[in-house]
């Protein structure tokens, strides 16, 4: 059944629309473009690995699939080809390491001050670059002392009988941005929900994009096992990480080939956070007691968010806030693509890809930008020198929930 993805290559008419949009091929000759590496090279791969290692320079942003008018699953084909390539060559230590955010989290969080010092110390970073191959200038988040899981266990719902919603917060929120998780919970509770935070680990996405499919399948199946009872009970699952949400919605099935009833139920029940809130609004169920927020904020919809096929619900939500002026940005990609931009041989490519976005953000003159994806936010914050927030943070402030934080 997987081969609906591979078979889609027969729909390719070589129109080159994917090539004209590919942000990576535009900035480096090392990546010959999604059409060559995807539907064309795939014909030569058969059961063996890629004859051509350039597929590793695909960042996996997925824009090629979104713009293809013939429904060719270009990014998905390339993701699988990359996995086959690494299966044969063996995955380097660095890629194994950065693909396991929850392992890194468990190591770093207990010693957060020390770990954060190391992550942002120039000598340590130079050493890490030369030994492991993580670029010394690549954006790194800071470990939070107390994880979101720990914080959420101390939190009691204000209305225990309210309708429930399940919150899939992902690794970024848990280890690095627990405050964001608290804002998500506060906004959902403000709208009359009881928020269930199940025990959860990594969804396997970084492993998938670093070519370790067997481990990625293990992670996603474990996560699905934790979420499935809620999905079977008919509860919506809400995710604030757009890439991890997309893993549950379709990539675990389409790319990793996981095919079971639990995953199907979880896929059907999963909503991107902004998608979920906008649906509430369409039913007249979203509270709109927003205060004025007189700000100009550039908004970047990350590539993986665009992969949901839901448009840009954040724009419609933020439009509800009085005096908030949101500038829709039109650069396709920030370049980081999860872990791609961390790699020493890809860092410069990643920064070149994001250049348009960074300069467009700077041109707005705002010191604040909004973006749904955590790694993109970290990249934007560093490269455009702004504070980058999830759109939910603006809603949270407009609801007056963060009044005590100013």
């Amino acid at each position: 059944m997987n081969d609906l993805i591979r078979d889609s290559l027969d729909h390719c008419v070589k129109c080159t629309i994917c090539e004209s949009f590919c942000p990576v091929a535009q900035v480096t000759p090392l990546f010959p473009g999604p059409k060559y590496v995807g539907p064309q090279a795939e014909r030569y791969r058969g059961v063996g690995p890629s004859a051509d290692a350039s597929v590793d320079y695909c960042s996996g942003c997925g824009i090629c699939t979104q713009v293809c008018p013939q429904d060719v699953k270009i990014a998905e084909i390339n993701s699988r080809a990359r996995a086959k390539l690494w299966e044969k060559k063996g995955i380097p230590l660095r890629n194994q390491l950065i693909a396991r955010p929850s392992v890194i989290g468990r190591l770093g969080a207990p010693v957060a001050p020390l770990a954060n010092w190391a992550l942002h110390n120039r000598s340590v970073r130079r050493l890490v670059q030369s030994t492991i191959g993580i670029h010394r200038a690549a954006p790194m988040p800071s470990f939070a002392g107390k994880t979101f899981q720990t914080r959420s266990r101390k939190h009691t719902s204000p209305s225990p009988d309210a309708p429930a919603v399940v919150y899939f917060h992902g690794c970024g929120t848990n280890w690095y941005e627990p405050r964001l998780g608290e804002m998500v919970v506060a906004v959902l509770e403000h709208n009359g929900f009881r928020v269930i935070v199940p025990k959860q680990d990594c969804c396997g996405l970084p492993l998938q994009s670093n070519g370790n499919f067997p481990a990625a399948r293990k992670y996603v199946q474990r996560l699905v096992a934790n979420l499935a009872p809620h999905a079977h009970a008919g509860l919506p699952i809400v995710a604030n990480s757009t890439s991890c949400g997309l893993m549950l919605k379709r990539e675990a099935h389409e790319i990793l080939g996981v095919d079971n009833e639990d995953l199907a139920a979880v896929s059907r029940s999963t909503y991107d956070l902004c998608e979920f809130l906008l649906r509430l609004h369409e039913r007249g169920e979203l509270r709109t007691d927003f205060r004025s927020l007189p700000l100009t904020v550039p908004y970047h919809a990350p590539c993986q968010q665009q992969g949901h096929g839901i448009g840009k619900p954040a724009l419609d939500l933020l439009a509800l806030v009085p005096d908030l002026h949101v500038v829709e940005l039109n650069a396709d990609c920030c370049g980081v693509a999860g872990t791609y931009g961390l790699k020493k041989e890809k860092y410069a490519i990643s920064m070149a890809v994001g250049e348009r976005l960074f300069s467009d953000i700077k041109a707005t003159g705002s010191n604040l930008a909004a973006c749904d994806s955590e790694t993109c936010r970290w990249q934007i914050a560093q490269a455009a020198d702004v504070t980058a927030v999830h759109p939910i943070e603006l809603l949270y402030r407009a609801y007056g929930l963060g009044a005590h934080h100013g």
Partner: protein
Amino acid sequence: MSYDTVVVGAGLAGLTAALRLAEQGQRVLIVARGVGATHLAPATVDVLGYTGDQRVESPAASLPALLASSPDHPYRVVSDAQLRAALEWFRSHCAGLGYEGSLDENLLLPTALGVAKPSTLVPRTMSHGDLRAGGRFVFVGFQGFKDFYPSLIADNVMRARLPVPVTARALELEPPAGRTGDLGGRVLAERFDTHQLGDWLVEALRGKLDPDECVGVPAVLGLRNADATWQHLESTLERRVFEVPTLPPSIPGMRVFNELTAQLRAVGTRIVLGARVVGARTSARRIDAVEVASGAGTTLYPAQSVVLASGGLASGGLELDSYGATRETVFDLPLTGVQGADRVRFLPNYFDTQPLSAAGVSVDASLRPVDAKGDPVYANLHAAGAILAGAIPWQEKSGNGISVATGYAAAQAICASSTAPVAEQVR
């Protein structure tokens, strides 16, 4: 979210309809499986280039003859005044690209193969390639730039049937420094924008041009600053310079796409790409909502009106299956111009007039798809662009003309119908 109009398709017809509606105050959503033919076809708006084997000098003068011989042609639902208004609208909305020309006379521009092609509106970066002016032309290529052969262009231009004598030659330049291997149009355009390749080109051409030669260069002079680069080339080289369309990707077409989508975003139109329409909620011959695949489920977009601009066979708006059945892929609309499954489907010569070439949906005066009896299938569904039956755009050279004219006319029909109840009250 609920919308005044959902437009299915992001090609030139869909973008035209959407922007025309949005600028009149409508809340518009575009959903499309992907990007349309803007990125493939030269960005010239060709209204009518041929009737049969006859090259058209004036579309305005030749349209009556076309409609007489092809009574089902999409131009039938667009009046002369509306066609002129649509072209003017397009020109003013692509002001930065400086479109030139009029419905009264076609220019003759060389294609990537050196064929003299009749075009009605052309970006001014191309307009000096008008072969009707006669004179001496030199076609410039870059080694390594794919699918662009200046000697082929020059040879064919020399052979072309032209009103005045023309001479043409080819010139192949070393590729710009810093880039080896294959060169794509997209990469070159980016480098013209950011690396001042215009200066490199001036240097590379120094001493290689004869006096009075007009210079044709591949249409890769940039995505954002092409017009300025072109002006710089003309003033520095002190002669006429023009862009020659390339094989896909079409950089001038991408400029149009970027221009129109920027204006759409500015007026709050939402664009969802990579999204397939899988169905519609209908009642009493109306479409109430469009259902779009998203993630593992679907999203419903309620709408007052819908524009179908999904393209023809090449774009997947029409589908011919292996049993010989043809269908319209979005709303399963009735088709005209379709052969029975037992009939010959293809003629052996690729450039013959193929049996399916004019297939599509037939529409009423408000561009609403109709059934066999001529009644609208849905009272609030309109169609525009290559999905329309009755034209053979590649023979007529009418593709972008039909897209702009019918996209514009569909938007006008929707605006007229949404004010209709008020008009009735007044009466």
